[in-house]
């Protein structure tokens, strides 16, 4: 069907849209060289290297912290392995003032913006330095100064929030936008529909970045939706959409830059579907072996976004083996040492149980805290953490 399609027909004519295939935007081949008709990406070498280093950083962080979880140091962990390109490539296309609202698997975005290893570790161990005051499970990071909204576990709730946030940015008129990350599973929630519809109706500068990584825990995307990915949904909202190879960091970067222009200059919200794969388990609680094959996994391991980016950097003579070795070593050391430090810190104080529920602690709740303190004084051994002992072994 084309624009020559008639406006009126006289026999019942059905279409399911499958014919309107959405192409995938790619720049880099798996060997790290550009497709021959692809233009060289408009990317300075500092940014290119910062992207790459960040991707390697989160890979190292993820490996180390999963190991820490396996050792019982941490209760829970989630890796973004395989999706670093989609996450870091897109983040690098934003202005530092743009808001990021993530799902939970986007530590790369935060790392790119300069979240320190200390900051990561404090949250992971829920210690007294955790901005979140030890209230949320590991990986629920947030940073006000880095414009990274604190993660919330209920899926998809951040998507309409991003629409609202971006609407506020539009009224503020400073040329900022919001990028919201979510999985192809979360896109099934009602909140997704609400968010995209409101975004086009109200002309909001927001970029909806769907990480289509093939799975929602054990549920493969063929059981999540019948369509060819999430991208065709944009048609239902008259929203600009682009599909991109999510393991092609340069393409993700370029697509997001173009999307940002539409959003910020023209108040046109954009859906970006980054096709990628969750190489690791869903989380440290999951074992994918019962729902997908090793073959499938190793096929995707060959498409590793980090390797592809490295090959490209090497071809540009921006990166050498020695650089890689040095980077890996220094990152491993940094992560390990910082982890040990963070783990030794005490938990947040008992008061943190009742603060931040409201701007001020209401009288009845203050009374509950007093009662709790009195109780703990009676049984100090029963509540070791709050009675001043280190909270390392949670």
């Amino acid at each position, binding site marked *: 069907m084309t624009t020559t399609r008639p406006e009126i027909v006289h026999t019942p004519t059905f279409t399911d849209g499958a014919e309107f295939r959405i192409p995938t935007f790619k720049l880099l081949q798996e060997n790290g060289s550009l497709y021959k008709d692809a233009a060289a990406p408009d990317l300075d070498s500092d940014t290119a290297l910062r992207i790459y280093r960040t991707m390697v950083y989160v890979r190292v962080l993820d490996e180390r912290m999963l190991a820490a979880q396996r050792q019982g140091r941490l209760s829970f962990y989630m890796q973004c392995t395989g999706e670093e390109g989609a996450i870091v490539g897109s983040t690098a296309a934003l202005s530092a003032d743009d808001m990021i609202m993530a799902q939970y698997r986007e530590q790369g975005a935060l790392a790119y913006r300069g979240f320190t290893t200390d900051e990561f570790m404090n949250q992971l161990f829920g210690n007294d330095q955790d901005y*979140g005051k030890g209230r949320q499970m590991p990986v629920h990071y947030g940073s006000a100064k880095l414009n990274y909204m604190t993660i919330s576990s*209920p899926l998809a709730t951040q998507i309409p929030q991003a629409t609202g946030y971006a609407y506020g940015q539009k009224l503020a008129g400073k040329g900022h936008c919001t990028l919201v990350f979510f999985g192809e599973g979360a896109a099934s929630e009602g909140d997704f529909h609400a968010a995209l519809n409101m975004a086009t109706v109200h002309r909001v500068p927001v970029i909806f970045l769907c990480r289509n990584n093939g799975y929602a825990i054990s549920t493969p995307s063929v059981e999540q939706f019948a369509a060819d990915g999430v991208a065709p949904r944009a048609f239902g909202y008259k929203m600009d959409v682009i599909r991109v190879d999510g393991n092609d960091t340069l393409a993700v970067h370029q697509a997001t830059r173009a999307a940002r222009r539409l959003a910020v200059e023209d108040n046109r919200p954009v859906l970006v579907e980054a096709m990628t794969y969750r190489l690791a388990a869903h989380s440290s609680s999951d074992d994918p072996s019962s729902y997908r094959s090793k073959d499938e996994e190793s096929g995707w391991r060959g498409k590793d976004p980090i390797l592809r980016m490295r090959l490209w950097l090497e071809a540009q003579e921006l990166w050498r083996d020695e650089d890689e070795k040095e980077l890996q070593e220094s990152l491993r050391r940094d992560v390990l040492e910082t982890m040990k430090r963070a783990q030794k810190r005490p938990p947040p104080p008992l008061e943190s149980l009742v603060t931040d529920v409201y701007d001020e602690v209401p009288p009845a*709740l203050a009374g509950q805290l007093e009662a709790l303190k009195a109780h703990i004084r009676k049984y100090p051994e029963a509540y070791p953490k709050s009675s001043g002992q280190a909270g390392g072994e949670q």
Partner: protein
Amino acid sequence: MPRMNMLQAINDALDIAMAANDRVLCFGEDVGGFGGVFRATSHLQEKYGKDRCFNTPLVEQGIIGFANGLAAQGSVPVAEIQFADYIFPAFDQIVNESAKFRYRSGNLFDVGRLTIRAPYGGGIAGGLYHSQSPEAYFAHTPGLKVVVPRNPHQAKGLLLGAIHDPNPTLFFEPKRLYRASVGEVPEGDYRLPLGEAEVLREGDDITLLGWGAQMEVIAQAADLAEKEGISCEIIDLRTILPWDQATVIDSVLKTGRLLVTHEAPLTGGFAGEIAATIQAHCFLYLESPIARVTGLDTPFPLALEKEYFPDHLKIFEAVKTSVEF
């Protein structure tokens, strides 16, 4: 002081808030040019433009999700849910998101600027989907404030209080009083405090506690009781969460008896919470069981609405039972 009905008072509050701060936005289904199905937002779009007062698509979860985002961004959203009965599609955005936003982020982010308005309650031949009083669903959710005004003066002052309160606030408006309740309303900006109950009438024999449209019903019942020589103390709770325990406790320590009324079903209604708290604090002072006069444990009916209703006669009877215990 000008006389206004409750809708005018609410409209006036919104107008004042929008005039004072251009970050205040009003939106919801039919809220824009039309001014809302009850006309609470009349003329606001004309005055402040389509960017600040507008229709949304028909999706409550989206309205509140959008409002949460706006509030986090630093805007001051006043979102309307067309009927409180239709707030449930937004329940997750309110209970899991608005209520927990500040806590979960350790105060890095909050949606304290959010206000959600919704008409609630029966008495308008609305049947089960235009009559509900859902305050108790929200009162089990730390992080939210829940406010219900009883007349135009209160509505304006409490709504301005809610809009300026640094916590997400649900503002339930007794729609049966929208046009029926008329009274003097001060001009200009004034804010009534959240979290404070108000003693409306002093008395010795029993404390009658309620909120919103039930305050009128309580007053009628108290008048009947007065004729029988029973002296009622009347308290408007005004803020359901967090509620003013001290004022209620003081009163019950004095009267020795308590009756709480609401339109919502008995089981799990907020009267239960109040009774549980007061029996604990006033145990030795209570001269009779705390009475609850509420809706039945059923959905809200239509044809037999009058029978269902916790009206002044039912309250009056419960007062007598309590005093004669």
